[in-house]
């Protein structure tokens, strides 16, 4: 068991099963990265939410690596008596690029509903058991298969599509 994991456990006052956690990285004093795979993410988040009592989800970042997607849940462990927060970046790794699927964390955070939709819009990552996985931010006319934040789409392509749908919108009565 790594020292970082032990430190995080003592702050949260729970035990995190080692088989669920891939790695714990200490970014700076009182700020951690927790890495886990898409398979174990739901169980680990359940412990963090129900046992450690983490209820604040700041946002979700999706990002693309060479052969996988990563999804980072920025959650805050809040200690009200001390007026202190411990930021945790809960990173779900190994989300398959061909068939991107990961469990939705909506059961634990209601805010995950719209943050996950944002990630779905930009990367096409499918969140399993999400109650309302629909388009949130992209325009109505935006082509379904184009996921703008993926690296394969260049800035110029985005500009072309934007101009095209703007023109279509103006022509339509």
């Amino acid at each position, binding site marked *: 068991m790594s020292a970082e994991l032990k430190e995080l456990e003592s702050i949260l006052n729970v035990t995190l099963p080692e088989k669920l956690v891939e790695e714990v990285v200490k*970014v700076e004093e*009182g*700020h951690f990265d927790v890495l886990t795979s898409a398979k174990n993410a739901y169980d680990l988040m359940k412990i963090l939410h129900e046992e450690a009592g983490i*209820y*604040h*989800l*700041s*946002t979700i*970042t999706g*990002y*693309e690596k060479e052969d996988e997607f990563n999804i*980072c849940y*920025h959650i805050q462990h*809040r200690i*009200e008596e001390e*007026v*202190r*927060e411990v*930021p945790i*970046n809960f990173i779900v790794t190994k989300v398959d690029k061909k068939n991107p699927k990961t469990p939705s964390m909506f059961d634990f*955070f*209601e*805010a995950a*509903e*719209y943050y996950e*939709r944002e990630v779905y819009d*930009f990367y096409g990552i499918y969140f399993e058991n999400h*109650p*309302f996985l*629909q*388009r*949130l*931010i*992209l*325009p109505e006319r935006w082509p379904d298969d184009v996921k*703008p*934040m993926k690296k394969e789409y260049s*800035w110029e392509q*985005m*500009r072309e599509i*934007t*101009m095209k749908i*703007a023109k279509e919108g103006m022509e339509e009565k």
Partner: protein
Amino acid sequence: MTEYRSRFRTLTDGSDAPEGADHHVFIGPQHPWAEEPAHFIIHLKGERVVEANIRIGFNLRGIEKAMENRTWRQNVMLVPRACGICSAVHQNVYVRVVDKLAGVEDQISERARLIRMFSLEAERIHSHILWYGILAHDAGFDTMLHITWRDREIIMDIMEEVSGNRVNYSINLPGGVRRDIRPEQVPSIRERLAKLRKQVEYHKKVFTEEASIRNRLQDVGILTKEDAKKTTPNGPTARGSGLPFDVRKTYPYEMYDKIDWDLVYYTEGDVLATTLVRVDETLASIAIMERCLDQLESTQGELLIRVRPRVPEGKYMTRAEAPRGEDIHYGIANGTDKPERYKIRAPSLGNIDATLRRMDSEYIADMPVILRSYDPCFSCTNRVMLINENTGEKLILNQDEFAQKAIKAKKYNRPFF
């Protein structure tokens, strides 16, 4: 258990209304009440609200994608454009991400940090005063709008002197700050801050004692602490509901832990509480600015240190307390001079859900003040695709043409079109 209904909708014709609603009120994206592009759908039964929904996504600018195509250095001036009002805080969070990734965060002098703080607090003051002025206007109390906006000029004049700009200060840079606060400026700034404090104390008196506005805000749109924990609002919206979390206290950055200041929070949870949080915070911010000036007298140090254009590989998440709440940035560097991925979550998006929940079973007449209560700022919410065209007089320009035209217009002193 009833089925979950998302308040962020995509349909807008009212056919997805909840059960029991007999009228539907649509507001926006173009509406005289809302200066910001969002589409609110208020489902009513009689005069009471059954459910309030929203549709966002009308103003997608693509700042995140644009940042991946620009260097870290260029992005310093792009990132404050994420928001028109709280631009300094976006820039501050960004430069702290760059400082940390470049490994120079320990070398930044105290003087530079104090000047950064000074600009952040000035921004909080002008944003809060602007907001509660508009709130008074929504509640039908236009005199208050005129009074507050007159007093807001004081802080804008101060910052114009210090930074050169009235709103978008652009004073933070990786490695330090762009400008110093000169000792000869300080006496006049102090004098004006004292005047501003007097005015804000008067604003507080109006909001707490004047019955016509107090009755409009008190016990309206209550958000309980339990609901607040569930819907995860941030900033003044949460602090009005008894969640005492302010990033400046809970995870101090810059020099906030070295300066003595008071955290403001209320437990009532109504619109009046969020208003008073902001009024009190304005007073606290004036005190912080004065303490910054005190410390600046005795603190010397280099204002700007060199940061290399190539940022080493790494990732870093950091946050700051923007006027509207928690502003969170996540930067991933790949060792080149451009970011691999840069994520911005501005505070308004996190506050929408909680605010729509406030509306449940309230009167339709209270809707303007409740919707205003979280300080809507949709450039905070929508920042993804860029529409880079100027269609006035059937003229479509791309970015380069626009830049060329602008340069020519400036160089040869020609009209733009």
